[in-house]
């Protein structure tokens, strides 16, 4: 067991981990931040996406030890300081960008990373960017739409109801 320390959602945290402890396991089991989900074991589904030092990574494909000293943001750290939904979270609710909610944390974290890099993405860019996030419920329609809306685009012309 070794000690790891990092900053998670703005708070300094540390804990004892094994060498093999994944970042996803550290977040879920040691910190009880269960919003980061594990949906596969081949690092493809993206339910576990978090931000490490400002970029999106799959927390199930990174060891906790590799995040030593890092700034980590999880879905629990995405709301506004007053607890209300952030622009992206609100857009997901407004446009029905989630159903069962299991892939949602990863989707939101990927969407946030995309908009950070590319504040005004096209539909095609959004769809390509989500290559590593699988959703089984929504058919992606409303996820893509929500991200476009979060970027400030007019989505009223996109088929809805």
């Amino acid at each position, binding site marked *: 067991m070794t000690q790891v320390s990092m900053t998670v959602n703005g708070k300094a945290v540390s804990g004892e981990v094994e060498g*093999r402890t994944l970042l996803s396991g550290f977040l*879920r089991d040691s910190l009880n*931040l*269960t*919003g*980061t*989900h*594990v*949906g*596969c*074991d*081949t690092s*493809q*589904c993206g*339910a576990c996406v978090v931000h490490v030092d400002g970029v999106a990574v799959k927390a199930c494909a990174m060891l906790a030890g590799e995040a030593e000293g890092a700034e980590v943001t*999880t*879905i*629990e750290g*995405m*709301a506004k300081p007053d607890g209300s*939904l952030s622009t992206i*979270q609100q857009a*997901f*609710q*407004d446009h*029905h960008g*989630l*159903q*069962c*909610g*299991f*892939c*949602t*944390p990863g989707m*939101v974290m990927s969407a946030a990373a995309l908009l950070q890099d590319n504040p005004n993405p096209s*539909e*095609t860019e*959004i*769809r*390509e960017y*989500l*290559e590593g*996030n*699988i*959703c*089984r*419920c*929504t*058919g*992606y*329609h*409303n*996820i*893509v*739409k929500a991200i476009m809306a979060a970027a400030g685009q007019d989505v009223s012309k*996109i*088929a*809805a*109801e």
Partner: protein
Amino acid sequence: MPKDGGIGASSKRREDVRFLTGRGRYTDDININNQTYVHFLRSDVAHATIKGIDTSSADAMPGVVRIFTGADFEGIGSIPCGWQVTDRHGEPMQEPAHPVLAQGKVRHVGDPICAVVAESLEQARDAAEAIELDLEELPAVVDMKAAVADGSTKVHDDLTSNLCYDWGFVEENREAVDEAIKSAAHVTTLELVNNRLVANPMEPRVAVGDWNAGTDDYTLYTTSQNPHVIRLLMGAFVLGIPEHKLRVVAPDVGGGFGTKIFHYAEEAFCTFAAKQVGRPVKWTSSRSEAFMSDAHGRDHVTKIELALDADNNFTALRTETYANMGAYLSTFAPSIPTWLHGTLMAGNYKTPLIYVNVKAVFTNTVPVDAYRGAGRPEATFQLERVVDKAARELGVDPIELRRQNFITEFPYATPVAVEYDTGDYHATMDKLAEIGDLSGFEARLEESKKRGKLRGLGVNCYIEACGIAPSNLVGQLGARAGLYESATVRVNATGSISVMTGSHSHGQGHETAFPQVIAEMIGIDESQIEIVHGDTATSPMGMGTYGSRSLAVGGSAMVRAAEKVINKAKKIASHLLEASEADIELKDGQFTVAGTDKSVAWGDVTLAAYVPHNYPLEEIEPGLEETAFYDPNNFTYPSGAYCCEVEVDPDTGKVTIESFAAADDFGNIVNPMIVSGQVHGGLAQGIGQALLENCSYDENGQILSASYMDYAMPRADDVPFYEVDHSCQTPCTHNPLGVKGCGEAGAIGSPPAVVNAVVDALQRAGKDVTHIDMPLTPGKVWAAMNG
């Protein structure tokens, strides 16, 4: 103007807030103090005799609490099957035992042999590797037709063969259908495969068993679509735990799509083992494990023949289907290729004579059961493919051939035992032409040509049957369960309402949509109404969520309970208002005396019910809480018309979906936003089946597509924005909401549209291609194009 509340409003989903902030509570988020972890040692071969299991080294490994084998389940019940099909000759299906842990033989890759309970999951895995298994491999039974040929190795030695049943429907029509086909002006024949799929909800299955030594009560937390069904099946048939000592909780569940209906061995194991080891036992499936332990879907091989007269009227239809059951009968497996498939073979058409033959077959593969649509996608696919093929053979427009044969008068009794109450198939086809811009296809075709791409248009219709019922009928058909739904409407003293429903939401948005109905009925704000579900301790006995039944059946139960509440509240109001009960009207949360300005608010009436000082105690009891069980008297019949435009890259065979439009008739709509979302998701699953997804086995029974590295899940860039419409509404005539169900339509209606479109594209390019089996991978399309 869109409504801002009640029935017909696109109310935003209240459950989203917790899911968007990481505060959902899924089963894997539940950890109980002092819990242990179980790892299942599963068979890595498809078929073998277990000659020996030596756990002596493993028992001594660090952290091991106890290792279980099949021997620990001697005398424990078999995982039960919930539907008994009767074959063509009046004999019951063959029904093998399904032990919790393998006994004597293993019958598919993934069949659990040992369960290692340890202090940590990794310790359990370490110990599992130290177990010495002596397995004597047997030939694997994989191909269905070979499985039922004489001399085949048997999956179950105690059965007479690998044939579960040979079902004929309607058996009395058999000769007439044969005769009609023999004398037809034209017969179109198609042989096809409905590919095996894995449901793949994004949340893998999880079970946590807990036992209270003080009370002898058990609790199972599980990823289920129907906790009461699990309690009944596991308690009564497997473990012998009476229901009052067994609580089953299905908290937030990350998608189901059918595969979380069934009672699984892992649930029974964790519940059983919790008492045996005296500590909670937790199992979390990995995705790789899910591929070999979640029940799969589809996997039919079909020959279909459509007979037409000289005027292109359909005169008869005959099908022969081999349906894979896998190695054991999963909970509802026998019903899928029969009552959920054969009864739908009329589709939207007035074909007078239909005969459906289904041979259900045991193989050394993972059990196959319901997956979104369950039987109805298989029916729709073969029917809409053969109609399309007939149109091409006859040189007539595929849409016109369909329209010519549409059922137009309702109610309509089909020759396959169901009666459609309502529908308007021309209306949805008209709507499809509009939203799919079918008249603009030629221009788009030209534009694709300029880019060197082959464009195709595929159109099809579908009909489905949802809200399977009534219970007494399905009982005659072999169901071993009732198919009602329940709800308790509990009005609290201050007027807020808790609705305990037997339906279960795992993405469908019940927590938002169900309150819209109650809000509409009473005229109070939706925020005053809460839906409670997923826990046998809080909800009345209910059958759960599957088969697009929640609103049609569960919602109806809720309406019935709410009506009882309102009737009682009116009695109280009439007392408070000193008026005749018959004169009391409820609107906008106010009880008024008709024709006067006398009124009393909802909250005052509810308070009176619980503080009955001024109250007719001699006539009615205090309190305001009612329960209803609703058992529908028919299925509901959603229908629609779908179209898909594809482009095929002639160099690589790659198919891209350029557009997809869906015009559905779901009857009345409670929340249009949620309905659209349900259709979107179904379409992606149907497109996935048509182009990407395939659970493939080799001849040794090894799964070739056992992870996301080889099982192609639809991604965001595989699908377009969809055009969906549900403005064509012929309300259901027999449930109080007039709703039909929308959960499965997208997955049922979309695969034939995609395949029809690809065939259209290739034929327009002069290729002699009449069919390609799903999934239409680039390699298969390229091979078909190049002879």
